[in-house]
């Protein structure tokens, strides 16, 4: 679906994106993670042919970009760095103008498609109001509606839930999952780890212009081989387990034990009360923080 190899973008001496490889397969919900300034937006812009790479190649739908932009982009819906619309027009008119530009938006179905996407993103009631009267969340929804207008096979979304309230985020997540089930591949760039964790099947992590991690979510979330035990009897637990207990505080012990059930039986047999016990899984946040350096907008003296 998306295949980038050796993608590099230099602005003068600044290397915004440094020799990255990306592979997004059909059916993926791909989470593209990275701190502010790590090169996410530049990469998204290169994928869409807005910024020309210094070197490297991009293929969308197995066609070279930006050379085949005219054939490829009508099959792509995108949201790049926030939505924007003609402010003095109504949401409906804006979408109609947008659809009239470029190929792939047949005129006879335009009215119906606009009504459909406005309905999908939850703006059906305000389609005739001017965009300048929209709230931030409504503009975000309108941007999403624009991306969905031509029922794209691939959605490239840069921070799609920016400015939305928790309910809105939930709605967008449901919408993306529904679209994905219907066959749409989603490429989602974000720095909201929780959002990506709940939604994505694969993630790529960008740090200062380099891809430091590209893996399926299932692989990342496989248990680490350790078990976390919550117990009121911390002293007896530590005595029983000896050096198998790797970390502990007042109420929890992290134990090197791949089978939580066996550990539980052992503890209970020894008369240790267990209030909770679970295999340790690293959260996406821990994984990303371990893979990346300090934030790019942090500037130390």
């Amino acid at each position, binding site marked *: 679906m998306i295949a980038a190899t050796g993608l590099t973008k230099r602005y003068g001496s600044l290397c915004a994106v440094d020799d990255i490889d990306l592979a997004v397969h059909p059916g993926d919900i791909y989470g593209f993670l990275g701190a502010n300034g790590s090169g996410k937006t530049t990469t998204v812009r290169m994928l869409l042919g807005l*910024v020309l790479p210094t070197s490297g190649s991009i293929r969308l739908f197995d066609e070279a970009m930006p050379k085949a932009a005219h054939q490829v982009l009508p099959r792509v819906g995108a949201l790049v760095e926030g*939505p924007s619309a003609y402010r003095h027009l109504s949401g409906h008119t804006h979408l109609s103008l947008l659809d009239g530009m470029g190929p792939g938006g047949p005129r006879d179905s335009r009215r119906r498609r606009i009504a459909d996407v406005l309905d999908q993103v939850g703006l059906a009631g305000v389609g005739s109001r001017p965009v300048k009267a929209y709230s931030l969340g409504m503009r975000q929804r309108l941007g999403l509606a624009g991306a969905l207008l031509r029922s794209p096979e691939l959605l490239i979304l840069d921070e799609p839930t920016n400015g939305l309230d928790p309910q809105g985020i939930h709605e967008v997540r449901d919408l993306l999952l529904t679209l994905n089930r219907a066959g749409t591949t989603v490429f989602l760039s974000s720095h909201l780890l929780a959002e990506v964790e709940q939604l994505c099947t694969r993630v790529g992590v960008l740090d200062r212009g380099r891809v430091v991690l590209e893996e399926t979510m299932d692989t990342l979330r496989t248990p680490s081989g350790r078990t976390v035990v919550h117990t009121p009897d911390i002293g007896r637990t530590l005595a029983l387990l000896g050096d198998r207990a790797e970390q502990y505080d007042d109420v929890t012990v992290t134990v090197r034990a791949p089978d939580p059930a066996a550990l539980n039986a052992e503890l209970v047999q020894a008369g240790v009360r267990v209030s909770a016990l679970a295999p340790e899984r690293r959260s996406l946040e821990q994984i990303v923080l371990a893979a990346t350096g300090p934030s790019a907008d942090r500037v130390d003296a």
Partner: protein
Amino acid sequence: MIRVELRKLILSPRTWVTIALLDALPTLVAILLALTDLGPRPGTGPAFLSAVLSDGSLFPLAAIAIVLPLFLPAAVAVIAGDAIAGEAQGGTLRYLLIRPVGRTRLLVAKLLAVLAFVLLAVLVIAVTAYIVGTLLLGDQPLATSVSGSALSSSQVAWRTALSLCYATFSMLGVAAIALFLSTLSDSPLAAAMGALAFLIASTLLLTLDAANVLQPYLPTRYWLSFVDLFRDPILWRNVVRGTALQGVYVVVFLGAAWANFATKDITS
């Protein structure tokens, strides 16, 4: 694409405000002339203005001569300067280009939309001026050419139409310059001011004898040459040169705009 650009033009409130403002000046002049009956002496002031006191139906030409030196090009600079930079500033340029709209196509569509704006403005001005002129000003058909011989009303009509076309076409140079600047800057204001500065420089150099060698190439040089269309016989030389010169400006600056824009990184 051109259809969408025209729709944008028509739907934009600014288009109509600009045209209304453009229209206001000649209308004000007509009212003042009607009230005071004080026309400029023949041969002074804007072209045709001395004639309209006796023949109001010539007022469309006078109105064009009033707005052509500054008002109309200023409006063109604003509209054309906004063409790309305005989309960039509003954030819509990136969405336009990923539809995808070809960049060359976009430039041409924008230039045609500016031309449509000028044509619309000129027509509105001419129609208003005709109505105001015939209602408020003189009604003795004067209809003589600038050279003094008589012109039939059909001759006046088609020569007027030709003048309006020439005035519209004269704005192409400014439009191309502003469009080029619009691809350089993300600020519509900067692009419009740049084009205006170019015009003011051109106007100034026209008054300077030392700039004689440059004068045939200045974009404003032949603007008022449409007066020549009312000579008998028509003096085509300057009209043809003016048209060709505008063509050269379009080729050069549209080319420069294309060279800059076609491979530009869109980071707005």
